[in-house]
């Protein structure tokens, strides 16, 4: 008799929001730093990317703290970096927040002149912050992948998927803010749209490979069943596959190839919003699909009580 395996219930919307905002903030910052190396035509994109990193990650941390059982002990989160990925993540996040805050203060506001002419210093700060941002978005995947009893998460594909999703969400956030702020849908923003279209195709492939890899254990197969055909399926098919991947990809092609008679950027705004929603729902789907391995006692396999 097959055990009735149940998904975990402790890490849900609050943690999904945290993972998404950390990923998006870190991704936007990396886009900003990279754009800063590309010359004068990319300055606005660089400034938007750098400006988004700190606030998004700060809000993410506030979500995480509010979700803790004992928020007043949150300051202890980095005490055990030798063994705990959450502790390493807390240190990475703190360092990233410090560097990205410094980057904003010295380049954008209020001391906007401090780094404006000092390209070398600004790039050095950006490289340091960029490394921390990449580590931060990688950490969001490892945080889940380090839980061995949940085979759906415990795979090397998950950090790769989260990294890719972070970069994509960061790009979309930059495009969204850029267009709302009045940047024309041309030049740098149009180039970002090309990159977004390519990364959306890549993300669809990685999601497919990730789910394909769940055949290894009964519990990961149960997770895939839950995500593809079970209670989580509407969220996955409608939220992640349709709204998060197919719609922005379709709208992106419309915009890029001017199928509707002229690029205005309005469609790119809609595509970015859909893509960001898809990135958030992807985290929620993965969390909601997490199922612990059954207890194995000789011939018996017994599902854990709801965790």
């Amino acid at each position: 008799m097959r055990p009735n395996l149940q998904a975990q219930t402790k890490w849900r919307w609050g943690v999904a929001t945290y993972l998404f905002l950390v990923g998006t903030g870190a991704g936007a910052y990396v886009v900003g730093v990279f754009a800063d190396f590309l010359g004068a035509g990319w300055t606005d994109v660089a400034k938007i990317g750098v400006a988004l990193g700190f606030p998004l990650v700060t809000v993410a941390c506030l979500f995480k703290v509010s979700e803790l059982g004992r928020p007043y002990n949150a300051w202890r989160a980095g005490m055990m970096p030798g063994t705990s990925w959450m502790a390493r993540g807390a240190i990475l996040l703190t360092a990233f927040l410090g560097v990205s805050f410094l980057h904003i203060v010295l380049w954008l506001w209020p001391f906007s002149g401090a780094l404006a002419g000092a390209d070398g210093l600004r790039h050095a700060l950006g490289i340091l912050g960029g490394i921390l941002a990449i580590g931060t978005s990688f950490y969001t995947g490892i945080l889940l992948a380090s839980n061995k009893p949940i085979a759906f998460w415990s795979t090397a594909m998950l950090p790769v998927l989260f990294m890719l999703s972070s970069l994509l969400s960061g790009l979309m956030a930059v495009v969204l803010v850029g267009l709302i702020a009045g940047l024309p849908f041309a030049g740098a923003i149009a180039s970002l749209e090309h990159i977004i279209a390519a990364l959306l195709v890549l993300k669809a492939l990685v999601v497919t490979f990730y789910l394909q890899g769940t055949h290894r254990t009964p519990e990961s197969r149960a997770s895939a069943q839950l995500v593809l055909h079970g209670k989580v399926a509407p969220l996955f098919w409608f939220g992640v596959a349709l709204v998060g991947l197919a719609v922005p990809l379709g709208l992106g092609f419309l915009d890029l190839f001017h199928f509707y008679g002229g690029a205005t950027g309005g469609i790119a705004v809609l595509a970015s919003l859909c893509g960001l929603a898809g990135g958030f729902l992807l985290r929620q789907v993965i969390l909601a699909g997490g199922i612990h391995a059954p207890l194995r006692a000789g011939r018996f396999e017994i599902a854990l009580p709801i965790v």
Partner: protein
Amino acid sequence: MARYGFVIDLKRCYGCYSCQVACKAANHTPKGIDWAWCMPAETGSFPSALRQMLPMVCQQCDEPPCMEVCPTGATTQDEFGVVHVDQHLCMGCKYCIMACPYGSRQTIGGWDTYFPDAEGDLDPYEAYAKARWEEKNGYGMASKCDFCTDRVAEGRQPACVDSCPAKARFFGDLDDSESEISILIRRERGFQLNPEFGTNPSCYYLPPR
């Protein structure tokens, strides 16, 4: 130094839940928290179907994943191999709940009375249990079984061992090759749950018939 361990004889357990109730009484655990619990399992199909109870406690892993992932250092292991949680250090991130393969780490947000229909204040016994729980554990932290460390320090057995009417539970020193539990593990081919996770639990099970 001793390494405390458990042996649970699946042949003897008939699923009376005495261990679960005794643990509640000894540790004042709130509704929704069970440091010791029993799970029914079935295998095979008619006419050779088999039903078996699986009594559970924290497996007190030698390599505890809950301690490894704990970001604050709230989860520690004492010299007897027993894993403890310091309620003053725990931040309630629930990472240990995700990492534990045995469902031994549990959390609760507040006291939910056992008698929801009763009017007025909690009865004195439940009020006492609530006060003791809040003193030793509290809410929002990921609590767990500690092999009744206080009772063992007084020379007594853990509550679930004392209360088992079938004598299906044994407590002792795994490092002493002549202890009752070491002999039982050797003689009756004791096994650990989910060895694939490499946690080396201190809780062994003797196979059912």
